[in-house]
């Protein structure tokens, strides 16, 4: 009975989406996501899947860097752990794909914990470099281990469910999108509890957090574990999506990509991780369109595409940090407020 009254008094207040407008928007979005594969071309489905994978990984990194304040340049390396694990399991044992994904993610989490151990003693750049070191070592391991196919990497069969093969963008969408949604929802949930508060406390002032009852090492490692679990899961999805995993699939620049995604989107907000990952995935495609479109006027446009992408990538990081450090999420918030107040603006 008491619980009942609690729910009515504070339950609504503690809900994830507190306004009816927000909930309405969410329903629309969900309907859109369900309808999307039936209307979109394979190319757009392909992009949607890629975005979803990147959202999953960026959300994990956001928990670690955006919420706990621990900088990692190892997110891509943690993804590679999940991807290789999935590939090896699929090739060698042919176990069910969901199990493979979970094992891959768990393995990535274990590696994440190991990499996180220095985080009690080292901070900031020193920690970021430790994560780079881990990436270098993992890369070396994967390119020299016969189990992971050495420098050639692994080609793997597609996922299948009761004999039904999941190898087309349309079917992959139904695997990747729901998993990503669950992951994002899980992250949002986590942040409403004592664990999320502990993360933020560590980010804001770790030494006082300790005196207030938060064991630093345990929560820093928890954050590493969850973040790399997310990366591992995203990496596993990536493996089923591309079905070829090589040592060059997850270079250091991808780790920078995820960091850039949460910066551009807005560090320390769930929405920011989503917006940033989608945006950063789509920008190169946009540039490709532009290059194709420009080719008749400027024949070298396609040749210039690669360096221009690199420049735009860097420019977005710098530009957002200087002009909109709170990222796309902040822009979105302003837009929303504008429409809320719209008829009554002064």
């Amino acid at each position, binding site marked *: 009975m008491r619980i009942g009254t609690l729910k009515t008094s504070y339950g609504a*207040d503690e809900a994830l989406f507190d306004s009816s407008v927000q909930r309405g928007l969410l329903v629309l979005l969900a309907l859109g996501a369900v309808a999307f594969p039936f209307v979109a071309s394979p190319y757009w489905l392909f992009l949607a899947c890629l975005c979803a994978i990147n959202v999953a990984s960026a959300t994990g990194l956001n928990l670690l860097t955006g919420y706990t304040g621990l900088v990692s340049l190892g997110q891509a390396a943690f993804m590679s752990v999940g991807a290789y694990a999935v590939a090896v399991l699929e090739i060698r044992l042919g176990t069910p794909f969901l199990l493979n994904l979970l094992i891959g993610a768990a393995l990535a989490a274990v590696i994440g914990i190991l990499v996180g151990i220095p985080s009690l003693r080292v901070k900031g750049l020193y920690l970021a470099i430790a994560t780079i070191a881990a990436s270098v070592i993992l890369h070396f391991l994967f390119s020299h281990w016969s189990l992971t196919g050495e420098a050639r990497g692994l080609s793997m069969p597609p996922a299948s469910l009761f004999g039904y093969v999941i190898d087309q963008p349309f079917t992959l969408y139904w695997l990747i999108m729901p998993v990503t949604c669950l992951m994002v929802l*899980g992250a949002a*949930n986590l942040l409403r*509890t004592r*664990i999320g508060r*502990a993360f933020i*406390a560590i980010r804001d002032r770790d030494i*006082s957090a*300790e005196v207030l*009852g938060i064991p630093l090492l345990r929560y820093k490692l928890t954050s590493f574990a969850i973040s790399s679990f997310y990366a591992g899961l995203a990496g596993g999805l990536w493996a089923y999506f591309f079905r070829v995993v090589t040592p060059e699939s997850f270079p250091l620049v991808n780790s920078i990509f995820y960091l850039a995604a949460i910066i551009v989107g807005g560090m320390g907000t769930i929405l920011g991780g989503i917006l940033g990952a989608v945006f950063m995935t789509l920008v190169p495609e946009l540039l490709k369109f532009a290059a194709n479109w420009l080719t008749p006027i400027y024949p070298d446009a396609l040749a210039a595409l690669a360096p221009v992408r690199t420049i735009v990538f860097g420019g977005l990081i710098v530009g957002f940090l200087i002009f909109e450090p709170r990222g796309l999420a902040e822009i979105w918030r302003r837009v929303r407020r504008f429409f809320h107040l719209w008829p009554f603006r002064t």
Partner: protein
Amino acid sequence: MSLARADMAARPILEVSGLSLAFGGLRALSDVSFTVPEEAITAVIGPNGAGKTSLFNTISGFYRPQAGSIIFAGENLQGVRAPQRAARGLARTFQNIALFRGMTVLDNIKLGRHAHMRTGVLDALLYWGRAQKEELELRAEIEERIIDFLEIQHIRDAAVGTLSYGLQKRVELARALAMRPRILMLDEPVAGMNREETEDMARFILDVKEEWGVTILMVEHDMGMVMDISDHVVVLNFGQVIASGTPREVQGNEAVIAAYLGSGDVGEIARRIKAEAA
């Protein structure tokens, strides 16, 4: 006076003995011993740099003393790390406000309960069953017992950075109360506050002692408030206890007056001590 005596006779909840702490060559605490009686207010005073905050940090487990022992509720805290001490009921506020700027007032207060909650990672990801129940119970308790009590309903959703200094101190007190304190350590709870805010804070501290039955250990420079509300005073100077007793006993103590005068901490405080005594 007789009441204070009776309190002191009560079993101490905190016994500090022979505590020494040095930073390199600097002896921040040397051979500090005192006891804190249960359900009373004990004030630690002393000139700037006397070692008061260092004492608190040592009791909290943030610094490790070179010598001495801290016995809390009959248990020797040696080897008990800071978070576990918090879980045992050692709650505190900080001299330089240590609120978490990325959280709302409400979340800052909720954070105080951390050590007493059970939600694990899996519960949290699902936000099902235990996690949800715990969060809602915590919310209700904080609203009904702490936010109402400290009169901060109007700012519960504010970002802490936007609050005035006085309100921030009050939120820190709220967070410490959420820690289920057995002993509440307040480091300069009214520093930088105006008269009115100081009086509010003094009232809250007294109410916490009386209504919640919580023991209070506080560092404070405001002699008026110390003399008004404390039952017991410990005076530190250069890391040593130079006097302790009831406010009245300490006020008249020559060594105390000399310490304040000698510290260059202005005669103001000494005058205040005399004025209060009169």
